């Protein structure tokens, strides 16, 4: 084994015997470009809604629920697709999320969610994953479209304006704290307080970690 490695090390570190320097550098460059292009193409292929709903788990459950909501059907016809909310747009975070998603491939291979009943049983767990993720990144995927700076609260209902002023603009809460279940049905919400709960910190601590302060948003010491 050691001998085998040593031989390959000698070949890899020694000068090229047959190929010219120009071929190796240019060839390396071209194949690098090709690899990078292919990698990103494949990555983007998995980043389409058609790919997501290629599996029955997604098509029959979450996709059906999405279609009734404001993020699918609305007066202006702008809509969010699965990756808009569930995959970060920025490259590093996207790769991290894609690596996490290998767990979902495992679940698909072994039929973790084959029936509606199995999906319903998993719903709270799955929802908690997304709540945690969006809480940790300060609702990044919401903010890809909804910017607090562009939000004209005079055009909101007084109720919404008051709450956004109180919680969103101060950074005390993030989108997902209040806006859960905006694109899919909610799971059993026992022990999950709404974001405007005056007992938020206490309630969040009681509820099995959901909504607990993670990252800078959690500490409201100021």
């Amino acid at each position, binding site marked *: 084994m050691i001998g085998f490695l040593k031989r390959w090390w000698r070949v890899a570190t020694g000068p090229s015997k047959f190929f010219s320097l120009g071929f190796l550098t240019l060839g390396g460059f071209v194949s690098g470009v090709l690899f990078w292009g292919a990698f990103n193409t494949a990555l983007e292929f998995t980043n389409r809604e058609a790919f997501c709903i290629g599996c029955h788990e997604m098509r029959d459950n979450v996709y059906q629920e999405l279609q*009734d*909501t*404001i993020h699918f059907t609305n007066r202006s016809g702008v809509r969010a697709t699965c990756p808009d909310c569930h995959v970060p747009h920025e490259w590093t975070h996207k790769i991290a999320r894609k690596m996490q998603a290998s767990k979902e491939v495992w679940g698909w291979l072994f039929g973790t969610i084959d029936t509606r009943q199995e999906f319903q049983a998993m719903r709270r767990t799955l929802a908690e994953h997304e709540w945690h993720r969006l809480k940790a990144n300060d609702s990044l995927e919401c903010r890809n479209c909804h910017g607090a700076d562009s939000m004209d609260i005079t055009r909101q*209902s*007084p*109720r919404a304006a*008051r*709450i956004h002023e109180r919680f969103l603009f101060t950074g005390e809460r993030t989108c997902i704290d209040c806006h859960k*279940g905006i694109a899919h*049905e*909610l*799971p*059993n*919400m026992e022990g999950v307080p*709404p974001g*405007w*709960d*005056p*007992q938020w910190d206490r309630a969040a601590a009681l509820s099995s970690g959901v909504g607990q302060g993670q990252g800078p948003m959690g500490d409201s010491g100021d």
Partner: protein
Amino acid sequence: MKAWLLLAAALLLPCLALAAGESPRLVGPSPMPAEVPAPPLPADRADDVRRTRNYPDQPPVIPHSITDYQIDLNTNRCLTCHARQYAEAVQAPMISVTHYQDRDGQFLGGVSARRYFCTQCHVPQTDARPLVDNRFEDIDTILERLRRGRDGQ
């Protein structure tokens, strides 16, 4: 003689019409299976202004949009504002104390199961034109009219 003829015609004509399957319909498209364009959906009254109740135990109507509100075994969106604990934070009217009683009048810690499905009694209002006139008068209007009638005599 002319009157007799007219009467006979008046009796006969509806029978002929019935035989032809042309009886006039009170509601819906005529003839029956015809497809007519659906009327436009009326807009919600979503101004957050509370409406007067017509009688004391009328379930108050909802002055905001409740589109996509989830009310089921898993969660109740209405209660995230109108439940006792959250009413102050969002300045929503708290659901009345009767919702925290069972049917024997015993008080409960949370919302009674029989009061859980809000939209069974509480409904949003739209700008739709009423199909028939509403001549309802509340008790004060009736009493006022009676009083005036008595004073007038």
